[in-house]
């Protein structure tokens, strides 16, 4: 379970990106975090794994206060939080296998990782995950030879091989076409179900969020302004989050045509 208490971030440019965010996410729950660009969505999930240091407040994962951990403790805590990025953030010049195995770096020693001698059970798990995301044939390709959708699948495998209890997902579909976007969202949500993971998924596509998650949190200039079921997202709520617009078309039930999951 993830618990945020009064989490606040003021960047040293003076931007108050998060102000006093308090929320809790029980095990196994997948949450969509919506809000306009600049609302603080990325800052929120980065404060959780401390790629960004929160200014005040605390974040607790399974009752461990992440905010006060020293560097060794933080490394251990990060192993429990898999992160998936908007621009995939694969190390481009490494192979698909190396990228996936890099998710095990928190568990193996330096020399083993330097010579790429990962334990066989890690390698087997990497094969299993690559098979699950449909990329078993790509093991020895370099990451920069893959398409966007394929890269994001590698990113998902890298996060999952950490054996996390929480996924932090930052706009996973923002660089993808609509069809691939749905496939990737479906894959993430399915994998969370299979493994009982909780997840925070930053997303600006409201319709896509409504399609896949049980709970939506709306963020606006660093504050939580909505927290509820996807069906509760009314035009009034969207106006509060994003400002005045005609929201009827966005909310209209997008019929979920069956696509094959590649």
């Amino acid at each position, binding site marked *: 379970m993830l618990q945020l208490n009064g989490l606040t971030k003021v960047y040293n440019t003076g931007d108050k990106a998060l102000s006093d965010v308090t929320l809790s996410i029980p095990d196994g729950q997948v949450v969509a975090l919506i809000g306009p660009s600049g609302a603080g969505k990325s800052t929120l999930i980065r404060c959780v794994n401390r790629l960004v240091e929160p200014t005040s407040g605390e974040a607790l994962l399974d009752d461990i206060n992440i905010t006060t951990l020293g560097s060794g403790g933080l490394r*251990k805590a990060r192993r429990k939080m898999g*992160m998936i*990025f908007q621009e995939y*953030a694969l190390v*481009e010049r*490494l192979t698909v296998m190396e990228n996936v195995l*890099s998710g095990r770096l928190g568990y193996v020693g*330096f020399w083993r990782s330097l010579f790429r001698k990962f334990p066989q059970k890690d390698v087997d798990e990497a094969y299993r995950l690559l098979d699950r995301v449909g990329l078993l044939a790509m093991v020895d390709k370099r990451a920069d030879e893959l398409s966007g959708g394929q890269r994001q699948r590698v990113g998902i495998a890298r996060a999952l091989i950490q054996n996390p209890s929480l996924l932090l997902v930052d706009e996973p579909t923002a660089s993808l076409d609509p069809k691939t976007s749905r496939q990737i969202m479906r894959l993430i949500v399915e994998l969370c179900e299979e493994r009982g993971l909780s997840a925070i998924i930053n997303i600006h596509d409201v319709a896509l969020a409504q399609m896949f998650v049980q709970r939506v949190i709306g963020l606006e200039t660093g504050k939580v302004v909505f927290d509820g079921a996807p069906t509760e997202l009314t035009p009034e709520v969207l106006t509060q989050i994003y400002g005045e617009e005609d929201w009827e078309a966005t909310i209209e039930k997008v019929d979920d045509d069956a696509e094959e999951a590649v």
Partner: protein
Amino acid sequence: MSVALEAKLGQAWKKPHFIKNPAWRWALILGSIAYFAAAWSGIDINFGRIARGWERGWQFISAFGDPDFTSRWDDIYKGIYESVVMTIASTVVGIAISIPIALGAARNIAPLPVYLVCRAVIAVSRALNEIIVAIILVAILGFGPLAGFITLSFATIGFLAKLLAEDIENMSKSQAEAIKSTGASWTQWINFGVQPQVMPRLIGLSMYRLDINFRESAVLGLVGAGGIGGTLNTAFSRYEFDTVAAILLIIIVTVMFLEYLSGIIRARIQ
């Protein structure tokens, strides 16, 4: 159609001047012309001296038609051998020292105190010209390739650490962050998140520096720091232009070979 648009239509468009103030612009243009005119008239050409030098220059050039590799072969061989050893050793040692300094000199990796120290090392290395360092070291250590070796290692640090640090500063932050977010240690983070991003540049720069060090080693011999330069200097002072030609040809061929080699290697690592 708006009034603002109406007023614009039919007007020619010109790119705005780089220097907006016309007074400054013309002052700069006229100033530059005056400077070049003064500089040109200041060149003092002594035609008599050129005519006398021409003959010796021609002897030198014609020696390339008939280079003499044999009569001083032992000296040439010893010089080349020393230069090659000096070049390879100083490049390897220089690179080995440059890498940690480059990591320290990259602002996005190193904390401020480390950054300042490493930048200072680079600045000192770059400020001191190879010849000056070599003269000082020859004075301290005596004639021979040890002085040349240390000089070139030192110069390699300034060159390689600076350019590598710049490449590290330009790396993709998100790729490095992704590795950090897995719980990797600092060394693992460097190895997985940073190294793959800068490796092609590191190899390219190292090859280029090998090439520079070889050419420098030929110059350092002139001040007594060992290598083929010493042999070259001796041949010059004896007016043995055919031996000089032979040595220069060997240097040119070696540099061309290094160029070819680095082309192959760089094509393979991209």
